């Protein structure tokens, strides 16, 4: 279990005047205002019973207006619980939850300016596409003409005009997905919650919908909060990502931040692939430090935080930044145990002392890159700046 709770990036303070009224329907969002904010949020299921389970442990998070924000984590990490608390489907145990400045902690879903795209879409099976999309607008008591106009606009937005009079059960997963999006966007929510909406689709469609979702978010200017366990999806679509594990917020940042500057072993391992190596600080001077790796030797790496000599740390290095070469000099060495051809790359599994490592070489063996076979001894090189020092 990770010990540290990493505070999210500082966000501009919520301007109380920017906080818009609670009624949905307004698309005006101040670019720097806070769309959603949770403070000291805890959620315990079955409080007081032997099966009590703490799903969220003191989560603090600010989501900016107009942001495509992703909650990323393995299943059971609490990301869906957090989304459901924002939607009003679960009551928080303690803490506060604000949407555009308004405390919604105790409000039911129908009183929040928020709409949801559900995991299995939850389209109304007895209604046509048109009636599904109109439902939210009708519930808000919009005049008939406006409802019709908005429904037509939504049908165009998600390219479902020709299916307008069909029922959900006659449509494919991708089409249902589009209807669910249109239904949730029609009342013009201030916040759109998306609960793993792509997980039921096949790979090709999923990749296509990623782009569509992203452009839909830009077109509508609505803040999207997207839940997924798929790190590739998160990196591809998000403005910012929050990595959650075990009910803790691990790290919040842009996709680049999360991938390039992981702040914990969990993030380094969960986002992409990482070689995680236990090491001890041998020497520390300013922004550089030397680390002893058992049975391996010493490596240098930049450090972002103070470390003590002798302190136990983990070094993280991405497989594609581990450079293999012929053994011709001093330095770390390894033996190739396995070679896997991946099409656009070759993956080498290595053993260096007690450490098992993975290296990935684009178009391995071609264009001047040397190829290796199982049993070969290789030297290990690290691209500059490729080693991340992790304290937890």
């Amino acid at each position, binding site marked *: 279990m990770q010990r540290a709770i990493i505070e999210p990036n500082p966000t501009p303070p919520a301007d109380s005047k920017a906080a818009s009224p609670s009624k*949905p329907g307004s698309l005006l969002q101040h670019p720097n205002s806070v769309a959603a904010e949770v403070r000291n949020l805890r959620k315990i299921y079955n409080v007081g019973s032997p099966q009590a389970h703490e799903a969220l442990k003191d989560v603090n998070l600010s989501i900016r207006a107009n942001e495509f924000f992703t909650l990323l984590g393995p299943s059971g990490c609490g990301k869906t619980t957090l989304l459901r608390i924002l*939607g*009003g*489907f679960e009551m928080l145990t303690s803490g506060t939850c604000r949407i555009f400045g308004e405390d919604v902690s105790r409000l*039911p*879903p*129908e009183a929040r300016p*928020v*709409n*949801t795209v*559900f995991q*299995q879409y*939850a*389209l*109304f*099976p*007895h*209604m*046509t596409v048109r*009636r599904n999309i109109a*439902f*939210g607008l009708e*519930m*808000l008591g919009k005049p008939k003409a406006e409802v019709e106009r908005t429904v037509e606009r939504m049908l165009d937005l998600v390219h479902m005009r020709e299916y307008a009079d069909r*029922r959900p059960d006659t449509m494919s997963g991708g089409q249902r997905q589009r209807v669910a999006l249109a*239904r*949730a966007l029609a*009342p013009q929510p201030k916040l759109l919650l998306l609960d793993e909406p792509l997980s039921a689709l096949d790979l090709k469609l999923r990749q296509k919908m990623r782009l569509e979702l992203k452009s839909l978010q830009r077109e509508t200017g609505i803040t999207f909060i997207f839940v997924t366990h798929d790190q590739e999806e998160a990196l591809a679509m998000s403005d910012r990502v929050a990595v959650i594990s075990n009910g803790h917020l691990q790290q919040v940042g842009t996709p680049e931040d999360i991938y390039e500057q992981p702040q914990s072993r969990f993030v380094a391992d969960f986002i992409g692939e990482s070689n995680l190596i236990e090491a001890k600080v041998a020497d520390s001077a300013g922004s550089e430090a030397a680390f002893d790796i058992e049975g391996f030797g010493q490596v240098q790496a930049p450090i972002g935080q103070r470390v003590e000599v002798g302190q136990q740390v983990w070094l993280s290095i991405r497989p594609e930044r581990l450079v293999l070469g012929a053994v011709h000099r001093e330095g770390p060495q390894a033996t190739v145990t396995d070679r896997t051809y991946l099409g656009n790359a070759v993956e080498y599994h290595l053993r260096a002392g007690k450490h098992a490592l993975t290296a990935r070489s684009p178009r391995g063996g071609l264009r001047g890159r040397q190829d290796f076979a199982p049993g070969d001894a290789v030297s290990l090189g690290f691209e500059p700046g490729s080693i991340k020092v992790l304290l937890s």
Partner: protein
Amino acid sequence: MSARPLALSSRIPQGFAHAGLLWPSLGVILVFMVAPIAIMLTYSFLVPGAYGGVEWTFSTAAYEQILFERDFLDDSLTFTPDYLIIVARSLIQATVATLLCLVISVPTAYYIATRSDRVKNIWLFLITIPYWVNLLIRTIALLFVLRDDGPINSALLDVGVIGQPLALSYNGFAISLGLIYSFLPFMVLPLYSAFERFDFRLLEAAYDLYASRRVAFFRIVLPVMRPGLIAGSLLVFIPSVGSYLAPDILGGGKTLMIGNLIGTQFQAARNWPFGAALSMILLTITLIVLLWLARRAAQQQRSN
């Protein structure tokens, strides 16, 4: 999607996927349902024999008798509502029983459907227990409970809440109670399976789209559950309209329903054509209800 039936049939060996498999059940229906109805229809247009049975003379007298009384002196017809009242009473009793069964069953079915699998099975098992005992015995047992010297009246008298026994038996109230008691499980079981199939995430979606609890119930829950509601209602309404035991035993034969009227014609009154004509009326009522529901369902399908 369209490949599924093909894939299914390709797995079944050729010799076994044969329409002949239907013949045993078709035979039973033909012999025990179609043939008797055809006989009844024929009899309803004949003249009663002196000691029961029929005489083979065509006549619509049996149908006229439902609405008119024939003066035995001058053969003139005068309108009489007596039999219409019995038909109306049957319809009202059945409707009341169906509605009350609905009101009782919705929460029950909802409760059972939302339990864990193990608890669910226990409840469903308990619901079928009354069926281990014959309906006649159960109806008589209910009469013993409701009688003037039955446990309910005795208890109330002993406590002093009432001075004389409540008229619980031998009236419309007892018949309604008997119908509800007899047919309640026919309502609970279809509703249970409708609730079990109901996707409660639809409710979350409705709330998410600003629906109140009440609106979500009427616009989402009821329409989605409509097939279950209709099935349960038919399963209660149809046997209730024509029920024989409950009015006979609990009504004490004083409050006639159409089932008893038909029974009397074939037994004591020995007017088979009239009994057959009444049976045809009962059958027609049932068919009208079924057709009306089917049409409504089709309209619903189109209008959404």
